[in-house]
C-alpha cells in the first residue's frame, strides 16, 4: 500500500514542476510591465531600475525561475506588489473564508446530488427520473453568478431574509456566519450537485444490474436494503473519486460566487490581483490551486484504494 502511494506521489512530481514552469512563464511571455504600475505616473527610470533590482527582474530568466521556484518550495511566493504583504500570508488570511464556503457548498451538493442520483437511477425511465435529469441539466446550464444575483434579488432585497453580502468569521458569531454564507454556498453547491447527481445516477445504474443485486433481491431483502446497502456502497467508489475531483470546479465557482456576494476569500483575492496587475498574487494562486488539485487527486486515489478491498492485495 505504501509503495502504491509513493509511486503516485512520484508520478505527480513532474506534473507539479511543469505547472510551476507554466505559471512562471505566464508572466514572462506576456506583455505589460508590472513595475510601471508601482513606479507611479512619472515612471522615473532610476526608480524603475531600483525596483527591477529589488524584484530581481534583471537576472537571466533561468536564474529567475530557479530563484522563484526555490522560494516557492520554502513557502515564499513573493511579495504582493500592491499591499507589500507576502503572498503566502495574504493567501493564508483568505483561505479559511473560502474553505468555509467550500465545505458548506459541498454539503449542499452531497445532500442534493447523491439522493437525487440514487432516486433517478432506481426509478429509471419514470417521470421522477426525467424531472431529476432536467433539473440537473438546468443546474449545469445556469451561470451560477446569475443564480446568485437572482437569489439576492428575491431573498435579500424582496423578502429580506438573509444578508446579501459580506462575511462573518464563525469564531465571532457562528449563527450569523452560517446565515451569511448560506446563499453563496447554495449557489455554488447546486452547480456541483448537478454534476454529482449525474455521476451518482450512472454509477448506480451500473451497479443495479449486477448479479449480486439480483441475488439480494431474490433473497427477499427489502428494497431499501438492496438499494442502500448492496448497491450504493458499491457505487460509492466512483462517486468519492469524483467528489475529490470537483475541487477544481469548487475553486473556480468560488471566484464568481465571492465576487457577487462580496466575500473576502480566495476568489476575490485573485480577481482583485488581476485588476491590480499584482502578478505575484495571481501566480501564487494559480500555483496553489493547481497543486491543490493534484493533492486532491492523490487523496482520491488513496480513498479509492481504501474503499476498494479488491485493490488491497495488489
Amino acid at each position: 500500500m505504501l509503495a502504491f502511494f509513493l509511486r503516485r506521489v512520484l508520478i505527480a512530481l513532474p506534473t507539479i514542476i511543469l505547472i510551476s514552469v507554466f505559471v512562471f512563464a505566464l508572466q514572462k511571455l506576456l506583455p505589460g510591465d508590472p513595475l510601471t504600475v508601482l513606479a507611479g505616473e512619472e515612471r522615473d527610470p532610476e526608480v524603475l531600475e531600483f525596483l527591477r533590482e529589488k524584484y530581481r527582474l534583471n537576472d537571466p530568466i533561468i536564474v529567475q525561475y530557479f530563484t522563484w521556484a526555490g522560494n516557492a518550495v520554502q513557502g515564499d511566493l513573493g511579495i504582493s506588489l500592491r499591499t507589500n504583504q507576502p503572498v503566502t500570508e495574504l493567501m493564508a488570511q483568505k483561505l479559511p473564508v473560502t474553505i468555509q464556503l467550500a465545505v458548506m457548498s459541498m454539503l449542499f451538493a452531497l445532500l442534493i446530488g447523491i439522493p437525487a442520483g440514487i432516486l433517478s437511477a432506481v426509478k429509471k425511465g419514470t417521470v421522477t427520473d426525467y424531472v431529476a435529469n432536467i433539473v440537473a441539466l438546468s443546474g449545469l446550464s445556469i451561470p451560477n453568478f446569475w443564480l446568485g444575483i437572482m437569489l439576492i434579488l428575491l431573498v435579500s432585497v424582496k423578502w429580506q431574509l438573509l444578508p446579501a453580502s459580506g462575511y462573518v468569521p464563525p469564531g465571532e458569531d457562528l449563527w450569523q456566519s452560517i446565515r451569511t454564507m448560506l446563499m453563496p454556498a447554495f449557489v455554488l453547491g447546486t452547480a456541483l450537485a448537478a454534476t454529482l447527481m449525474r455521476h451518482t445516477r450512472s454509477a448506480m445504474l451500473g451497479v443495479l444490474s449486477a448479479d449480486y443485486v439480483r441475488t439480494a433481491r431474490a433473497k427477499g431483502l427489502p428494497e431499501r436494503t438492496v438499494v442502500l446497502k448492496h448497491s450504493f456502497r458499491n457505487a460509492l467508489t466512483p462517486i468519492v473519486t469524483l467528489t475529490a475531483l470537483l475541487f477544481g470546479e469548487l475553486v473556480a465557482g468560488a471566484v464568481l460566487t465571492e465576487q457577487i456576494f462580496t466575500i473576502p476569500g480566495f476568489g476575490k483575492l485573485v480577481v482583485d490581483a488581476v485588476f491590480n496587475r499584482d502578478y505575484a498574487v495571481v501566480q501564487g494562486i494559480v500555483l496553489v490551486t493547481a497543486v491543490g488539485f493534484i493533492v486532491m487527486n492523490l487523496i482520491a486515489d488513496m480513498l479509492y484504494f481504501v474503499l476498494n478491498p479488491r485493490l488491497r492485495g495488489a
Partner: protein
Amino acid sequence: MIDLTTDPVLTAKPESRVWKKFRSHRSALLGGILVAFFVLIAIAAPVLPIPDPFATDWGAVRQAPSWAHWMGTDEIGRDVMSRMIWGAQASLLAGVVSVGIAVAFGVPLGLVAGYFGGWTDAVISRCTEALLAAPFLILAIALAAFLGPSLTNAMIAIGISATPIFIRLTRGQVISVKSEDYVDSARAIGLPTRQILSRYILPNVLPPILVQATLTIATAIIAEASLSFLGLGQQPPEPSWGSMLNTAKNFLNQAPWMALWPGISIFLVVLGFNLLGDGLRDALDPREH
C-alpha cells in the same frame, strides 16, 4: 420470427440511422431548436427592427418593460432587448471560436501523442496533465489578465484552457483505434503516416470529439460570460450578456429586469448546447441501439 432484413434500424444507412435516433430524442431536438434560435437572432441582429444597441436615451433611463421597450431599458436608457440580441453575437462567437482554437490545437496534438506513443506521448501528456490541474476558469482568468481584457483575448484564454480536454480525449480514442485491423492494413500497404492519421484514424475518432466540442461550447459560453462579468471579456459599451449582468447587479433594487434577460439568455443557449451534446452522444454511440 423477426425478419432482420426489414428492420428499419438495421437496414437504414448509418447516417440516417444516426439522424433517426437523434430525432427520436425530443430533448436533443429542443436543444437544436434553442441553439438555432440564438444563432438566427445573432446573425439577423443587423436587419431586425430593433433600436440601436448603443443609442442612449436620457429620457428613458431604467424603464420597466413596456410596448416601446419590450425588455425595458438600462441605466443610460439603452434598449435591453436590442443589447441582448446583439449580445448573442459575442456569446456564440466566443463559444465557437474558443472551442475552435481548442480543437485546432488539441486534436492534432492528441493524434500525435496517441499514435506515436513513447517520448512524444510522455511530453504531451505531462503538459496536458499540468494544464488540466489548474481549474479551467482560474486558468482562463489568469490568461485573460495577462493578455489584457478584450473579447479576443478572452476567446484565446478560454481556447487555451480547453485545449487539454481535447488532447486527452483524442489521445485516448487514437490508442483504442490504432490497433484495429484497418489501420494495420493501411500501414501494411505502405501508406504514409500522414494519410493513415488523416484518412483512417481521424474519421474514426471524430464522433466523440464532436460530442465533446458541443458540450465544451456550452462551458465556453459560460466562461466568456463569467470573464465579461468580471470585466475581463467583452468591454463596454459593446453589448455582451456577462457585462450586462455586471452592470445590472448594481441596479437590482431599481431595475431587476436588467439582470433577468441576459441571465435567461445565457441559461437557454447553454442548455441548448448541453441538450444537443447529450443527444449527439446518444445518437453517435454505436453500442446503444
